[in-house]
């Protein structure tokens, strides 16, 4: 294709199959399948480390009240007085209800 170039193998594969009218191209462009092609025990590296997730699902918004500060709600001051306020909530999706009140 003149103006859109398939670079990686997947893109080339989809392009080639699609040009033959092979319906599998459609599935390839849509469906996740399989797992890592690299099975190296002891090298579990791709998932890295990290900080916090996005604001989806909605329970996550709670965290944005003090991490990114864009949400107009009030939460305890986690910087100085209540650093452990959310420590019972590792995964907001499941644990949001475990977060307790604080009493200054």
């Amino acid at each position: 294709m003149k103006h859109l170039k398939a670079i990686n193998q997947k893109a080339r594969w989809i392009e080639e199959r699609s040009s033959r009218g092979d319906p599998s191209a459609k599935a390839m462009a849509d469906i996740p399948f399989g797992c890592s092609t690299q099975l190296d025990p002891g090298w579990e590296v791709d998932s890295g480390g990290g900080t916090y997730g996005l604001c989806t699902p909605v329970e996550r918004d709670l965290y944005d009240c003090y991490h990114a500060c864009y949400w107009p709600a009030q939460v305890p001051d986690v910087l100085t007085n209540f650093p452990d306020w959310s420590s019972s909530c590792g995964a907001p999706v499941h644990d949001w209800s475990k977060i307790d009140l604080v009493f200054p």
Partner: protein
Amino acid sequence: MRYVTELHRRFEAGGVPFIYVSPSASILALDDVSTAVLDHFATGADLEEWVSTQGEEEEFAERYEVFEGLVTQGLLKPEGEVAPAAEPLPPMPYPLTTLVLNVTNKCNLACTYCYEFGEDKLADALRKNGDARRSRMSSDTARKSIDFLFENSAGRDEVSLTFFGGETLLNFDTIRDAVLYAEERALECGKRLGFALTTNATLLTDEIIDFLVTHRFGVNVSIDGGAGDQDRHRTFKSGKGTYDEIAPRIRRLIEANRGEGPPIGARVTLTEGAASVQDTYEHLVEELGFYQVGFAPVTSAPGRDYALADTSMDALLDGFRALADDYVEAAINDTHHGFSNIEDLLRELHQGVNKAHPCGAGLGLLGVSTEGDLGLCHRFVESGEHEVGDLESGIDQEKRQQFLRDGHISNKPECQTCFARPHCSGGCYHEAQVRYGDASHANVHHCDWVRAWTDLGLEAYGRIAVGNPKFLDRLDGKQGAPAGAAMEVEV
């Protein structure tokens, strides 16, 4: 009909605009014309209206071809069209490719961060009846494991056997017997066979080195860097550091292996307070002679003093970026660079993997405990909750399938809006179990990191695609099966 864009990431590298299309994991290079078409549909646009404003000239045909290409590659879809639901499971029983034998759960070191022995351990120390578990795998169990691997790998031309621990070399007798037996069985079954082993290098003797080289082991040495970093966490039980003990042994191993088996890799666990990744890389490659170095941030529940702080993760990303720059430069000049994290990522981006599951645990890979119980992977063996059968009675297919259904990407709501989903797929099950008490949970504490790391990888990919595209196809040939091999089963 109105068309909208699916999840994607646009990036520029080497002066060329690219797009990574998340539903297909395709990477496409754009030019001014395709960029204009993409921009037009970026926030959704009506196809008929767009066509009616275009002329009949040849250029329109080219623009329309771009539009069709973007549809084919999964980027543009009619608004409201729902992608077909992914099959929760590949055809079962899914054949094994790798079996990880935990030949011992004992270790001669007392690394302070180790999940096998520390507070983050999942394995049950005792059997259900209260007896202590056997600490070493017998040769008999190892042989049964090998039979099991060959019986459960129908259709695979190549299988691999990985030895894991504890410190694997504490049970070298079983390893030696298993290797000789497996080689016999591989000949009988007409399959190719590979061996891999992870070790802390403290017990490497000339005899063991000779054996590993002769049988072409892929050896990963767990080492954290120079003496300062190595001796901070990787200590003998007396508290004495291990660097002086292992450095000469590693040099002998690398020297004996030169030109023989697969090159020797180092595996570094990154903890709070460690040296920069560049310094660590330089030490391991230039001082000790490792061919490749992979870095893994420590797995931990929150709050451990060795856990990496968020600020350290930022510094770490800067270090990874500097190493990735060196890697790209080497790739463009067709020379070797041993930063394996970026190489693994580039390979997956090139193949266009679009994972339904983050790793092969429970799919092509299983772990075997010292007593012959089957776990989802080597990290889960002996954790009663995650056992999926044993060598005697075989794989508990129902439990295995339930695990795979739960761990499918479509069951991770946090991942549905993330462009990095195709290669991350929610991250390590074991990490999720430690962090959230649920192996099928997405590792949301990693998300920012994974996205930043994916951006870094995409840019590196684009620069190589512009500077030396042949390198990428060769990269794929270096290891693993093409992603398409798995895709073939699906469609």
